[in-house]
């Protein structure tokens, strides 16, 4: 698939000398959901702000739909919708007027039916004439999305859409994102919640200290970098791991009642069957077993730690 957003050697150094982005290269494919994962201060918002035109890049280029965001900013920005991290809304205006304003600002002719449809799709249909200040926090976030979608963009940036949002609202937001993807919109979201990236992204980019450490298909990343664990419950606690099993990556947990075997899913053979046989030979009786896949969080923490 063709890249709809193409970032080349993008750098941003603030006047204070702080280097927020260090030569970022990133291609975002049309129709995908890319999650940019990184700790606070990693450069996620700066990257989004620079692509959207709020921050001026120090060097490098960004193209959206083939248009340079600096030289052809009108065409490029027309394709982009931005949902900021903070709830920035005119409190005294009605929901529909604030969405209409966004549409007009992006040069699209007034279309009340379109605005109504957007509000409806975000479950804001009955709030169209309500003042923004009367809405709950979750609804305000939806209004921000409605504003970003008002000019029918092809790329939508969501900057920490669920920061400080409760679990129910977060799941709700994920559904909204999934629905948007179904309409063909490319979505880039930043988050520092790993479970969020894991739940909704097609690809995950890990960003830390202004650098992209890795961009990969989510499941590929998990299978390549993910380690699995086999947890075996023992009928009687063991104090030491038998010497005959020293070739395996084993550990005893829960006061010796659980034997944990860590293995790599990339290897042709996991060694599980052999281990179970050798355990029986060594006199370790098992009562139950389960496997666990390491989460994106473990991968993420590992990557960021390596980069520190």
């Amino acid at each position, binding site marked *: 698939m063709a890249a709809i957003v193409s970032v080349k050697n993008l750098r941003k150094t*603030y006047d204070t000398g702080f280097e927020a982005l260090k030569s970022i290269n990133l291609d975002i494919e049309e129709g995908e959901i890319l999650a940019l994962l990184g700790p606070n201060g990693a450069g996620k918002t700066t990257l989004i*702000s620079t692509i*959207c*035109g*709020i*921050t*001026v890049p120090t060097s490098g280029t960004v193209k959206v739909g083939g248009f340079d965001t600096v030289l052809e*900013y*009108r*065409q*490029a*920005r*027309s394709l*982009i919708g*931005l949902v*900021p991290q*903070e709830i*920035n*809304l*005119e*409190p*005294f*205006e009605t929901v529909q*007027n604030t969405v*209409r*304003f*966004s*549409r*007009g*600002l*992006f*040069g*699209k*002719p007034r279309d009340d039916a379109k605005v109504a449809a957007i509000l409806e799709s975000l479950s804001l249909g009955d709030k169209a004439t309500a003042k923004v200040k009367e809405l709950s926090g979750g609804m305000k976030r939806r209004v921000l999305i409605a*504003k970003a979608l008002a000019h029918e963009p092809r790329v939508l940036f969501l900057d920490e859409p669920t920061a400080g949002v409760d679990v129910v609202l977060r799941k709700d937001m994920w559904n909204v994102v999934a629905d948007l993807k179904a309409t063909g919109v490319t979505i880039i979201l930043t988050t520092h919640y790993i479970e969020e990236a894991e739940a909704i992204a097609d690809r995950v980019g890990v960003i830390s200290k202004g650098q992209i450490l890795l961009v990969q298909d989510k499941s590929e990343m998990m299978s390549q970098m993910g380690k699995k664990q086999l947890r075996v419950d023992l009928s009687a606690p063991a104090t030491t791991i038998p010497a005959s099993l020293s070739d395996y990556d084993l550990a005893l947990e829960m006061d010796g009642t659980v034997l944990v075997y860590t293995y790599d899913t990339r290897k042709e053979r996991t060694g599980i069957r052999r281990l179970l046989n050798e355990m029986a030979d060594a006199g370790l009786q098992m009562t139950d077993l389960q496997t666990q896949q390491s989460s994106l969080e473990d991968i993420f923490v590992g990557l960021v730690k390596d980069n520190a």
Partner: protein
Amino acid sequence: MNLTAIKSIYAFEMARFFRTITQSLISPVLSTSLYFVVFGTAIGSRIETVEGVSYGAFIVPGLIMLSVMTQATSNASFGIYFPKFIGTIYELLSAPVNFIEITIGYVGAAATKALFIGTIIFITAFFFVDIQVAHPIAMVAFLLMTCISFSLLGFIIGIWAGNFEQLQLIPLLIITPLVFLGGSFYSVTMLPPIWQTITMFNPVVYLISGFRWAFFGAADVPVGLSLMAISLFMAACLTAIWWIFRTGWRIRQ
């Protein structure tokens, strides 16, 4: 030119004005009426005529200018400062619009509000004094140019201001004194010679004088000079705004 964007900004800003239409109108009408009662009737009754015009009528152009200048400045500064304050400026900066379009939208709306208030005061004045307008076209032109140029100034103040105190600072410390000392309530010729000279450094003198000329055909300074002063002021504001958007000063990092 993104005309739809200009229209949207303009309409959104005007909606803010119409939401508070009662206070937008009552306050200038009330303060103007008070000026007429105090200066026109109470004090004015002791002053017979100024430059052949009754004192009550003489202060009308100055009163209109006083309100128009302060309203244009405060409306425009608030108009652009508020999005900065509540954070909605992100939308303006990420939209396919250039600085000319943003400026036309915000300054146009602020100038319209000031013009609206100026007209209301003009109408209110009719209830207190007899006014004749000698040069109606020049009057409208001066009023329009003042509305626009002070809205441009307000726009700059709104971008510069980092908090609400700063937003009030320039109107309070600079514009109000200049307007009061600019001959709103007196003719410059009524001052002692040394103050007449000092007053000539106040740009507002030229604006009020030109506007008063449009009413009564008489002025403190030649009308051509007034026209030049307001054009220069407008050009200076436009240059400042061009520089602000070129460098991103205080708005774009």
